[in-house]
């Protein structure tokens, strides 16, 4: 009899003591969104510590910026958050304009809002699609990229590039929109609006998706603020902050007269200006589901803003003006400006010694601060939840490593 028990593999398993194990995830792991390496300390399925290692995509953008003029650095900002390059261009252009006390024409300002919000939709579509992929659901990715492709086609028509645009530049934009672009844009929005319902069916209200995200990776309000988290990660924790409303005057002036509600849960509900699915009962404020949901609400919000921008752009008189000369000198001084990018608050700081080439440029990346909080979120979670948590932060390594 005893011989029988010893041979039973189920019983032997109880005899095996589990040891702590170091698991290396990445830098070529598909769910790490680029070249991020996570070192997990695990005991069986439970993760006790996560340590992110970054720098695999470091391209010394800040050092390069000390050798180029302000406008020549625009293409390098493209390559930071390459999924929202328009917003990166805008952030840097506004920071330089803040230092130079330069104001763009009204038409250019409306066109910038239009383009930046349109790019936000494209970025959130990737965030949403890739998040589905992280959680093992392949179809949302295809649905998201199908629509994003149409946005990229429109961008290509406007500026010639599909990913690294350099369209918004210091002093305005490199070109005006081609004829007929606005009507094609409106046609896209009309077609896109019902598709969002599909996304809600595929992910937001999907039972498996809710099980994988609701109550997972809860980021408390205070922790989010202390780590300098921003964007949907901060708003997903219930902090009412959006720089398009709360930022510096040079940035908020662009959005003057635009009607939008910040996508954040206030008094137990999200803004009630449109139809959206109910919050599942297992979801806790600050968890992966809420971060994802804020992004989905922002897609709808940006669609509204694009529609308003189309009207105001067509109604405004004059031209979009001319961008500044490449060698236009900057005044002595320094300026810092943060803008609300799809991933969070992207800040650009520049110090000038009076020439056209900045003395020092600095990019404060939102994903950098958002990723820094991972080790707090992953403490005590299951290995399978690590991709769910990292994916919900929607990071882009190009922006973190610069």
């Amino acid at each position: 009899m005893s011989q029988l028990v010893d041979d039973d593999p189920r019983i032997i398993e109880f005899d095996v003591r589990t040891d702590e194990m170091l698991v290396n995830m990445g830098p070529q792991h598909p769910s790490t969104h680029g070249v991020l390496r996570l070192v997990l300390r695990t005991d069986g399925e439970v993760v006790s510590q996560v340590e992110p290692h970054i720098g695999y995509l470091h391209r010394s953008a800040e050092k390069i910026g000390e050798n180029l003029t302000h406008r020549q650095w625009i293409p390098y900002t493209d390559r930071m958050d390459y999924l929202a390059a328009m917003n990166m261009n805008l952030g840097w252009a506004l920071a330089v304009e803040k230092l130079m006390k330069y104001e763009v024409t009204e038409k250019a300002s409306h066109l910038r809002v239009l383009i930046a919000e349109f790019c936000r939709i494209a970025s959130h579509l990737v965030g949403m699609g890739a998040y589905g992929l992280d959680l093992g659901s392949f179809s949302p990715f295809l649905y998201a990229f199908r629509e994003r492709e149409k946005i990229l086609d429109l961008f290509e028509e406007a500026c010639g590039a599909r990913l690294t645009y350099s369209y918004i530049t210091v002093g305005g934009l490199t070109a005006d929109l081609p004829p007929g672009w606005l009507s094609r844009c409106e046609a896209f929005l009309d077609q896109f609006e019902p598709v969002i319902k599909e996304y809600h069916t595929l992910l937001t209200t999907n039972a498996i998706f809710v099980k994988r995200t609701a109550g997972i990776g809860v980021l408390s309000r205070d922790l989010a603020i202390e780590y300098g988290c921003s964007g949907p990660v901060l708003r997903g924790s219930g902090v009412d902050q959006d720089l398009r409303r709360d930022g510096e005057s040079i940035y908020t002036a662009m959005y003057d007269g635009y009607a939008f509600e910040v996508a954040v849960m206030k008094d137990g509900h999200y803004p009630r200006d449109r139809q959206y699915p109910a919050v599942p009962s297992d979801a806790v404020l600050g968890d992966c589901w809420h971060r994802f949901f804020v992004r989905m609400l922002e897609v709808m919000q940006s669609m509204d803003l694009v529609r308003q921008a189309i009207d105001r752009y067509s109604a405004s008189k004059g031209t979009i003006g001319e961008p500044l000369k490449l060698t236009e000198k900057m005044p002595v001084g320094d300026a810092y400006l943060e803008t609300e990018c799809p991933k969070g608050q992207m800040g650009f700081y520049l110090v000038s010694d009076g020439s056209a080439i900045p003395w020092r440029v600095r990019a404060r990346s939102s994903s950098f601060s958002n990723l820094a909080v991972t080790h707090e979120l992953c403490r005590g979670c299951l290995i399978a939840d690590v991709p769910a948590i990292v994916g919900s932060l929607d990071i882009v390594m190009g922006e973190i490593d610069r």
Partner: protein
Amino acid sequence: MRGPSFLEQLRDAVSGAVVGENLTAIDPWINIAPDRMADACRWLAKSSPVRFDSLQCITAVDWLETDPKKAAKVSWEPRLELVYHLWSTASKVSLVLKCTLPRWKDGVAGQLPEVPSVTGVWRGADWHEREVYDLSGVWFTGHPDLRRILCPEDWEGYPLRKDYEQPLEYHGIRGR
């Protein structure tokens, strides 16, 4: 808020912290003595009338003119300047702190200048300080785990210093 009265409160609360200010700059800034940096930040984050509960960014600016011809003309002293950008989530206002350090501690090349770490005030300062140490060579005393973050651990030199020279090779990879 950004006016002189707030500055007076900071002067009273943390003695010897404020060593200069410029309230008329595009982004008004306060210059803090390096050894009082952590105390000043603790007051700003925890006890000041406006709670600066979030640290957005730390930047090191290297003031050194490497061209001898131009260096004779510049009016400023060579130095390293730390710039802290703080933000108050409740009041939606920002604050800029600056801190002037020597380029090398005691003027000995290779000895990193020191400043107290603010990781005890904002946990998010951890990575920001590691990045400044990595790229600009500033030692944050009291930081729990100060090591390179973007460059490899065995990298030599501090790339964002103005007198940095790119290595000719790194583990058999040609640099220039």
